[in-house]
C-alpha cells in the first residue's frame, strides 16, 4: 500500500493489527494506547450509564410481568420512563435536614457512586479488535491484580451507605447504615473466600487469565459449583438486593440509609445500586461462566482476531450479563426479606465455614489429581481434569442439599416421610392450632 510522505511517521510504519500497539505515535511515548483507552472509556461509560437507566425500566417491567400487571406504559409506551424519571429527579427540590452533618451528607452519595462506576475498568468484555494501529484489547485496564481490584473497590462502596446513614441524623437512616456495614463486611469475607478455589485452578488473579483458562478447561461453574453458588449469594448481599436488602428495608426503616435524601442525591444511590448489580453480574459471568468466550466454538475465542469475532463475543458477554441481571430481578420479586439474625447466621455460620471447607476440598483434589499425573490441559481433546472436579462437585452438591435441607423441602418431595417425623410434624401443627384457638378464644 502506498502512503503519501506527508502522513505522520506512525502511519508510515507497517503495524501488525494482531499485536498490541507500540508505545510510539502522535503524542510521543504515550500515543496509541492512550487514545485507545480514551475511546474505550467514553464508549463504555456511555453504554454503562444508559444501560443502568434502562435497567430501572427493566426492573419495573419484569416486576410487573411477575405480578401480572402492565408496568410503565405511558411515556413513549413506557420506553421513555427512565428519561422522565431523570428529568423529575433533576427538577425536584434538594432537601438538607437541619441537624445533618452537612459535608458528609453531601459526600455520601458520591462515595457510593464512584466505586460502583470504577470497578468496571478491569472486566474484559469481548475478544480483542484488530485495527490498523495495532490490536485493541477489549478491557479498560488489564491490571495484574485482576479481581482483587474489584473486591477492594467494592469494599469502599459501603462507606457511602454508612455515611449517608450517620450524616442524616435520623434514627432509621442510622439503623440502615449500621445494618449495611455489618452485612457488607460479613459477606465480603465469604465472597473473597469463594474466589480462592479459582486461584487454585487458574493460578492467577488476572481476569484475562481466568477467562483464557475457562476457554480451555471448561467453565468454573462446572468445576467449582459450590464456590459459584456462594459467590452469587454473597454478591446479592454485597449489592443490598433482596433477599438481603436490610439496609433499606422499606417496611421497617422507611427507606433505610437514604430516608433523608431527595432528588438527584437519592438518584445517585439508586444508580450506584444498579451499577453494582451490573458489575456483580459481569463478575459472575467472568469468573464462573467463561467471560466473553463462546462455549464449544474455539475458532471465535482464539487468534487470529477479526471484527466479527469481537462482535460475537461481545454479544455472548452481554447475553450472560443480562441473564444475571434478570436473575437478580427474578429473585427480588420472588423471595421475601431475611430477618437480620438470619442474615448474620447465614453469613457467618453457613457460608463462611462452607467456603473454607470447600477451599480445603478443592486444594486436596487438585493436589491429588496433580500427584496422579492428570494433565490440567485437555488430554486428547477431553478435559479429564475438569471432569474429575465436576464429578466431585456433583457429589458435594448432593451432600449439601441433603444436609442443608434439614428434611424440609427436597426430602419430603422426593420420599415418603418417616412415621416418627410425621408424628412430630402433626404434633407441632396440632399445638399451633390449639394455641391459635386459645388466643382467638381470649379475643372473644
Amino acid at each position: 500500500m502506498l502512503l503519501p510522505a506527508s502522513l505522520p511517521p506512525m502511519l508510515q510504519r507497517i503495524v501488525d493489527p494482531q499485536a498490541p500497539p507500540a508505545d510510539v505515535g502522535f503524542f510521543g511515548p504515550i500515543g496509541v494506547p492512550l487514545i485507545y483507552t480514551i475511546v474505550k472509556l467514553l464508549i463504555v461509560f456511555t453504554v454503562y450509564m444508559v444501560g443502568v437507566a434502562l435497567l430501572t425500566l427493566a426492573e419495573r417491567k419484569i416486576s410487573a410481568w411477575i405480578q401480572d400487571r402492565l408496568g410503565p406504559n405511558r411515556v413513549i409506551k413506557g420506553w421513555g420512563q427512565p428519561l422522565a424519571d431523570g428529568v423529575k429527579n433533576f427538577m425536584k427540590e434538594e432537601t438538607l435536614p437541619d441537624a445533618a452533618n452537612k459535608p458528609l451528607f453531601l459526600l455520601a452519595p458520591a462515595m457510593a457512586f464512584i466505586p460502583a462506576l470504577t470497578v468496571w475498568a478491569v472486566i474484559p468484555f469481548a475478544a480483542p479488535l484488530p485495527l490498523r494501529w495495532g490490536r485493541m484489547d477489549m478491557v479498560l485496564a488489564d491490571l495484574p491484580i485482576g479481581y482483587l481490584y474489584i473486591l477492594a473497590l467494592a469494599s469502599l462502596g459501603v462507606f457511602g451507605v454508612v455515611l449517608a446513614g450517620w450524616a442524616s441524623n435520623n434514627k432509621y437512616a442510622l439503623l440502615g447504615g449500621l445494618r449495611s456495614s455489618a452485612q457488607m463486611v460479613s459477606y465480603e469475607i465469604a465472597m473473597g473466600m469463594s474466589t480462592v478455589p479459582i486461584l487454585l485452578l487458574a493460578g492467577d488473579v488476572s481476569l484475562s487469565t481466568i477467562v483464557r483458562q475457562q476457554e480451555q478447561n471448561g467453565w468454573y461453574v462446572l468445576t467449582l459449583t459450590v464456590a459459584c453458588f456462594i459467590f452469587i449469594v454473597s454478591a446479592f448481599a454485597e449489592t443490598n438486593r433482596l433477599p438481603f436488602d436490610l439496609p433499606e428495608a422499606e417496611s421497617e426503616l422507611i427507606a433505610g440509609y437514604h430516608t433523608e435524601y431527595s432528588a438527584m442525591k437519592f438518584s445517585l444511590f439508586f444508580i450506584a445500586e444498579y451499577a453494582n448489580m451490573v458489575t456483580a453480574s459481569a463478575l459472575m459471568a467472568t469468573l464462573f461462566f467463561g467471560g466473553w468466550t463462546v462455549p464449544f466454538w474455539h475458532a471465535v475465542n482464539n487468534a487470529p482476531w477479526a471484527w466479527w469475532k469481537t462482535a460475537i463475543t461481545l454479544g455472548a458477554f452481554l447475553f450472560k450479563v443480562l441473564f444475571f441481571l434478570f436473575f437478580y430481578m427474578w429473585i427480588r420479586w420472588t423471595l421475601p426479606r431475611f430477618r437480620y439474625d438470619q442474615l448474620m447466621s447465614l453469613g457467618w455460620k453457613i457460608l463462611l465455614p462452607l467456603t473454607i471447607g470447600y477451599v480445603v476440598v478443592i486444594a486436596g483434589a487438585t493436589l491429588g489429581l496433580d500427584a496422579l499425573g492428570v494433565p490440567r490441559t485437555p488430554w486428547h481433546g477431553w478435559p479429564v481434569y475438569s471432569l474429575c472436579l465436576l464429578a466431585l462437585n456433583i457429589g458435594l452438591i448432593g451432600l449439601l442439599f441433603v444436609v442443608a435441607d434439614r428434611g424440609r423441602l427436597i426430602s419430603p418431595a422426593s420420599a415418603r416421610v418417616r412415621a416418627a417425623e410425621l408424628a412430630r410434624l402433626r404434633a407441632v401443627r396440632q399445638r399451633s392450632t390449639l394455641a391459635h384457638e386459645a388466643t382467638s378464644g381470649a379475643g372473644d
Partner: protein
Amino acid sequence: MTLFYHFCFYLFGLVAVASACVFVTRKSPVAAALWLVNVLFCIAALFVLLDAQFIGAIQVLVYAGAIMVVFLFVIMLLNLGEPARIADARGTLWYIGAGGLAIVVLAAMMVRLPHPLPIETFRIAADSLVTEARATGAVAPVAVPLFTEYLLAFEVTSVLLLAAVVGAVVLGRKRNESDAGPASQPGTAGTGTAAHAR
C-alpha cells in the same frame, strides 16, 4: 513516564501526609476515621506506583474496606456523645509538646539514619522483583516467600490471630446463659440457632 510518575508520587504522598495531620487534629471520631481512610488509600496508591499492586489492593481491601468500616460501625454504635467532651485535648502546652516531639523524632530519623547499603542494591532487588511480578503474576512474588522462606513466622502469626479470636469470643459471651442450647428444643431447629446468634 517519569514526569507523570513523579507528579503522581508526590501528589499522593502529600495528600497522605496532609490527611494524616488532619486525622490527628479532628475532634469528631467519624471525621477522624474518614481522614484515616484517605491516608490508607493514598498509601495504597503509593504501593501501586512502586509496582506493588498486590500490596496496594490488599491495603485497600483490608484496611480501608474492612477494618475502617468496623471502626466506623463501632463509633456509630457507641454514639460517643459530644466531640468536645470526649476529645483527648489537654490544652495548648500539650499540643506544642507533642508537635515538637514529633518534629524531633522525624528530624532524628532523617539526619541520623544512615543508609546501610548503597541505594543501587535496593534498586536492583526491586527491579528483579518487578520483572518477576510481570512474568508470574502479581501475587506470586509475595506468596512464594511467604509460604516457603517465612512459613514458620506465617504460621505462628496465624496461631496468634486464632488465639485473639478465641479470646474475643470468650470475652464477648454472655455469662448468665445456661449450657443447654436453645437448639435442643423440638421443632425449632432453625429459629433456635438464629436466636443463639443474637
